[in-house]
């Protein structure tokens, strides 16, 4: 019977498998922003450095070490080179996450969406997990995915000796780093999102956190000549801690990677605490 001839009918289960709630939330969070064309352009722009690096790697492997002078460590196909590439993606990570993540919880709070979500059979972990997965997806789209693509590309054009590291070691390091850093960053962004109801304010706070702490760290270091002050640099801590994973000698001046790891853990714990307190189906107004 066609739909337009029916009244209300009871649902007959079809026997198909339902997706878990966190996956449904993440899928929607990913698909909705991708409908905007300009976001596609931004993602494409975020891949330009990877294409450039790929070109340099190609030229280097074909033309020899002459090109080392051109790109320095950035063109290296050692793990260090890929860490530097990830550091270079910082700007795109910052912008893309601000656009796709700022409104994830703020909009739900503004439109009383929490009440809808938590009238369904899902819990706090599903909700936060789904939203965080959305942010992690966009994070990995401009970090992990280009690294893996570059590794495969470099492997295909390089002599066999470096193959194992390129095909396994570096992608694995990048995977671990991107998942951990992406999850932590996404939780911090979501915590900001849960504090407001307007995406624009969340973006302002996010900008202050990322660029503000970077600037404050740099200025204070320049004025006080103390490297340890860089511990306030938000995104810098992730790259500093990653130097352990990528066995890189490049570190933030005066800040141990272990301290950075502790700072990152503290940020993540704080974000989780905020999310736990802020995400409720009911607004309690004192």
């Amino acid at each position, binding site marked *: 019977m066609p*739909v*337009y001839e*029916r*009244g*209300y*009918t*009871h*649902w007959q*289960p*079809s026997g*198909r*498998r*339902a*997706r878990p*709630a966190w996956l*449904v*939330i993440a899928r*929607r969070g990913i698909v*909705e922003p991708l409908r905007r064309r300009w976001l596609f352009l931004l993602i494409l722009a975020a891949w330009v450095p990877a294409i450039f690096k790929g070109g340099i790697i190609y030229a280097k492997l074909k033309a020899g070490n002459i090109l080392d002078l051109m790109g320095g460590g950035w063109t290296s196909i050692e793990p260090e080179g890929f860490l530097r590439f990830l550091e270079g993606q910082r700007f795109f990570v910052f912008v893309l996450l601000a656009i796709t993540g700022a409104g994830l919880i703020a*909009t*739900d709070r*503004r*439109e*009383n*969406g929490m*009440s*809808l*979500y*938590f*009238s*369904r*059979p*899902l*819990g706090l972990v599903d909700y936060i997990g789904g939203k965080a997965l959305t942010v992690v997806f966009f994070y990995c789209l401009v970090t992990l995915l280009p690294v893996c693509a570059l590794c495969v590309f470099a492997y295909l054009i390089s002599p066999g000796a470096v193959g194992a590291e390129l095909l396994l070691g570096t992608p694995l390091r990048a995977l671990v780093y991107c998942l951990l850093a992406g999850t932590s960053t996404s939780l911090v962004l979501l915590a900001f999102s849960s504090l407001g109801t307007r995406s624009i304010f969340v973006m302002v706070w996010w900008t202050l956190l990322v660029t503000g702490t970077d600037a404050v760290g740099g200025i204070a270091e320049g004025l006080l000549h103390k490297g340890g002050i860089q511990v306030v640099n938000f995104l810098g801590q992730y790259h500093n801690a990653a130097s352990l994973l990528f066995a890189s000698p490049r570190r933030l001046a005066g800040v141990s990677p272990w301290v950075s790891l502790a700072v990152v853990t503290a940020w993540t714990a704080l974000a989780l605490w905020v999310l736990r307190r802020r995400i409720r*189906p*009911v607004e*309690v107004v*004192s």
Partner: protein
Amino acid sequence: MSSLTFAYLAEPVLKGVDFALQKGAIGLLGPNGSGKTTLLRCLLGQVPLGRGHVEVLGWDMATRARAARAGLGWMPERGGVIPGMSGVGLVAYMGELSGLPSRDAMQRAHEVLHYVGLADERYRSCQDYSQGMKQRLKLAQALVHDPEWLFLDEPTSGLDPRGRVSVLELIRDLAWNKGLGVILSTHLLADVEAVCHEILVLRAGELLARQAVDGHTRQARQVFEVEGFGNEESFIAGLRDLGCEFEQDGRLLLVTLDLSRMPEARRETGFDATAGVTAILEVAAARDYALRRLRRRPVSLAEEFYRMVEA
């Protein structure tokens, strides 16, 4: 629900609320701030329960609220329309979150949107919907997973009279013909009279009364309009012997009769006002008073509600 007590920030909102409901159309009435929405949120397991015990569809809401919610539909009063989605997208999304497979959710979304009268508007962005369409959309998302109970918080809020009637018709159809349990929280008594067969009255967080919607017509205290000529003083004295109270309303004499004093008026479902009519006729005949008019004054649900709340 037994002895439920709930407080926001130490401010008690529900105090010892105690009831059990069978499927049907239940009206939840009460003045603003009486705890209606909070009671619904307790039934949904959206707030941590204080003292007391809440069980919905056989699930303990303190520990198994998620399982119970699969069988519950919720239509909030405020907001509840996520921007950036089409009507059908939102309803299907909510269906998937309720545990429906993706394809089933989309199919159900089309069905329920057609049922609530939004078939032609389903692909439009729900941000652009009118208030009436948003209310229907919220009803559709509450129905998409075919719940056993629907909790509706002020479903006709902000609707024009025509929109209100059509939403009430849908709710009535769901409750009376489709076998869904409905709890309708509202302060519009006419909505309750149109849809529900039972009401719960809350005041300041306490369950003040529970009765059938037409229960006030079977209550012990009945008011009669009397007009006649003859020996009025003797007639009034006779009625006073029956324990009546009097009030003059222009030419009419309003006689309030307490039927609980008359064993012959007592019935299983309440009190039968015809016994009161017979008693008044007998007094009039005995006291030589010719009645020109004798009629039971209908008590509206609104009058009864205000009497209860203000008592």
